[in-house]
């Protein structure tokens, strides 16, 4: 008994992807009908990928059709695995591309998360060069950007991208589906060095702990001791109301963010550019995150052509207390980074506080003071962060304390 499994995309407008059909049969070995734009250069390599892939997935006899538009090997493998598993859902073997050396770097709990670039989980083309645009983080999305019929296929693309794509030092994030369904995404991503899992439509602390426990169980099973961090997204009235509980539900949470499309619908209004309707929710998220000691991150700005609007939105987010913002197009990254870069006045003030702090440390004083004014610890902490951000943004020399600061 055989059932045909198909996966991927085809058509004139498809690039860097492929469509594969696998029809397992009882005998006759593997036959491959290949149409490829890169046939002259990679026809043999594609056949080899398909043949060895089928063997790894335990398919000995099958009629295979491939329509290829220049898919990279990891994409071919993802499409092949999806096609085979649609034909034979009982298949347990995985078809894993090699874990590239450039996919093994780690992250830090308190790294900067100014920009995070959303990448639809079923579109490998957009992932390949995403890291080159320098976002602080990339989000391989399994949730809203993936059609419900492609959820299974997107898991393989995301998993293989985690193993093969060089994200150039960006924090590697994955947005799973809404809990509880999203818990079933975790086995496909957790073993492959994601740094942060985004939990969408998070409404209760139990959503967080459920993900945290499943992640930790998989890590233990795999013998991995690198922690994976969590970033809940609150997108409803209830989620916002319980924001502090959510942000403090687990030590794994490093940041809290907000999704406004669903939120505004939930409270019975519409999203506007001015954003008056979401002012409370955004401030609530900032307050909850700060109270829990995690980073508050703002939502995305969705008009990719309006750079002035984006700049205004970033400055507003910064003034509300957010540390970062989501983006959906690489051109938004630089605008966001510029917006979160401290101003000259902010840097000057922070430098004075940091110097006063160092002075107090040196003298063993318990209290930091600037002139006649006493400086409280949170202010010192913020100043340290401002200086750090200024250095990383390239507007302040790293050795400013040794006289490098004057030309900043």
């Amino acid at each position, binding site marked *: 008994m055989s059932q045909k499994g198909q996966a991927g995309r085809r058509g004139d407008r498809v690039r860097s992807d492929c469509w594969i059909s696998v029809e397992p049969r009882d005998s006759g070995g593997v036959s491959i009908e290949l149409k490829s734009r*890169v046939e002259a250069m990679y026809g043999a390599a594609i056949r080899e*990928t398909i043949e060895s892939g089928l063997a790894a997935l335990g398919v000995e006899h099958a009629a295979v059709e491939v329509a290829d538009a220049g898919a990279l090997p990891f994409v071919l493998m993802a499409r092949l695995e999806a096609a085979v598993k649609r034909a034979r859902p009982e298949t347990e073997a995985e078809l894993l591309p090699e874990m*590239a050396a450039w996919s093994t770097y780690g992250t830090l709990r308190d790294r900067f998360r100014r920009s995070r670039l959303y990448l639809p989980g079923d579109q490998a083309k957009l992932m390949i060069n995403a890291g080159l645009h320098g976002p602080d983080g990339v989000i391989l999305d399994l949730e809203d950007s993936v059609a419900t019929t492609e959820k299974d296929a997107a898991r393989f693309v995301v998993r293989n991208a985690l193993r093969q794509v060089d994200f150039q030092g960006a924090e590697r994030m994955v947005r799973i589906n809404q809990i509880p369904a999203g818990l079933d995404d975790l086995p496909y991503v957790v073993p492959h060095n994601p740094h942060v899992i985004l939990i969408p439509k998070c409404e209760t602390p139990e959503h967080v702990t459920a993900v945290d426990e499943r992640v930790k169980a998989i890590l233990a099973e795999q013998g991995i001791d690198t922690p994976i961090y969590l970033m809940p997204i609150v997108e409803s009235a209830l989620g916002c109301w319980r924001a502090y509980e959510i942000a403090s539900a687990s030590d794994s949470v490093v940041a809290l963010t907000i999704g406004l499309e669903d939120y505004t619908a939930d409270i019975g209004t519409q999203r506007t550019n001015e954003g008056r309707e979401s002012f409370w929710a955004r401030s609530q998220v900032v307050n909850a995150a700060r109270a829990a000691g995690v980073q508050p991150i703002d939502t995305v700005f969705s008009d990719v052509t309006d750079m002035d609007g984006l700049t205004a939105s970033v400055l507003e987010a910064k003034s509300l207390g957010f540390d970062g913002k989501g983006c959906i197009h690489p051109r938004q990254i630089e605008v966001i980074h510029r917006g979160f870069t401290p101003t000259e006045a902010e840097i000057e003030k922070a430098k004075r506080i940091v110097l006063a702090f160092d002075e107090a440390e040196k003298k063993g004083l318990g209290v930091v003071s600037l002139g006649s004014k006493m400086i409280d610890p949170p202010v010192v902490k913020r100043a340290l962060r401002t200086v750090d951000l200024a250095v990383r943004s390239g507007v302040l020399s790293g050795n400013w304390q040794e006289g490098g600061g004057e030309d900043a």
Partner: protein
Amino acid sequence: MPKAELARNAAGRMVPTEINGREAVPYKGVAAHRPTGTRAAPAIPTVMDYPDCGNKTVENIKAALEAAGIRDGMTISTHHHLRNGDFVANAVFEAAAELGVKDLMWFPSASFPCHASMIDHMKNGVVHHIEGSMNGPLGAFCSSGGMRGMGVLRSHGGRYQAVQDGEVHIDIAVIAAPTADPFGNAHGLDGPAACGLLGFALADSQYADKVIVVTDTLIEFPCVPWQIQGNYVDYVTTMDAIGDASKIVSGTTQITKSPDRLRIAEMTAQFVREAGIMEQGFSFQAGAGGTALSFAIFLMEMMREAGVTARFVRGGSTQYLTRMLEEGLTDYILDGQTFDLDGVRSMRENPTHVNTSPFTSYNYHGKGNFASMLDCVVLGATEVDVNFNANVVTHSDGQLLHGIGGWQNCLFSKCTILPIPSFRDRIPVLVDEVTTLCGPGELIDVIVTERGIAINPRREDLLSAVSGSGLPIRPIEEIKAEVETIVGGPPAKPAFGDRVVAAIKWVDGTVIDSVRQLG
């Protein structure tokens, strides 16, 4: 067809020593070939053969071709200023077919997909072969060995050179004219098929035995400015429409939305600034391709910020270049072709938006040319190898797909920059050795890819100029190796047959490479 004798040229490429019955000189190196003798010239005309009233009109193209004495084996030229909207070249060969003429050589300044009907003319014997760019379907036809003669691809400057030194003798030139008068004066500034300028037809008007002007907008004498001078013209005729305006110039030129291309364009502009090229009174040339256009826009922004203006920029002009001109960011546009309606308007209205030709800009037999005076030029390529050699006519699958255009001629600028993706889909653009050599690496200075900028090691001056700039300067081999890791190894070489189907000329008329039949 007899198998061509091949020789190894100075670039190490095997090239034919005879092309379509004429001896061919293998490429000797950059600035190594010095032809002697005198320029070619058509027979001397006399005014007594032309009507004193100045009216040279004939009924239609067929009548004009007959009057011009068309016969088997002649060379007929047309031009590409109407781009993919051209109706004239097809009409000429349609008329030739009706007249029962055979074995013509088509000598276009470039071909477009709209000329696919030439394949039928080649199959039924009207056209013997093409010497000119072979794009899209024509390229595929030539690569598959369908053409009887050998294709010859020349740069815009190389075409002028071949006409001037007699390598190609044009029997009949047919010039599509958006506006013309009965005497044969013509320009491209007005009329439904307005395209700006007619520079690609200049050599043909002066050197062909017979010159026919075809227009759909015949006005009373005088038609000024006479971009084509009626004194060179034998016959004038009309057709209802010489082209499809929507395919000649675009209403508005679109800049690329691709984040990778925008990144490459921005890095290119940053390089030009950081290398000290963007200085008061500088000059540059950039085409109308998505990346080149975006480069110009980024550079314009940087020029505004720095308060720097250019003395001249060379087009293909677009609304963006005209904005530069009208904003005072450049004193002049020296334009080779206009790509959008705003470019045409500006050329009509602005005396500092000047039309040029391959003679002024690219010609090897000129006493100098504009291209070598440019401070920098931004060009494309299908492949670049680790020695900075580049290909523009074939892809890695070996199929002819593009013409050379002014590309080879522009390599002589003071800084030649190729902003290109390091791979397209799965196909590496950076390779060990280019499939077809069109431009020698010694003339190509900088490759800007999304993964970093490679500077030709010969250009130590550029390397030191940008050191400390923060730009991602990387060895070309390193970027290539990274790409090969991503795409799963280097590409397999195409399976070529023995037969040479096309020769690639260098700017001096020597043969720099050949293209072989596929399969």
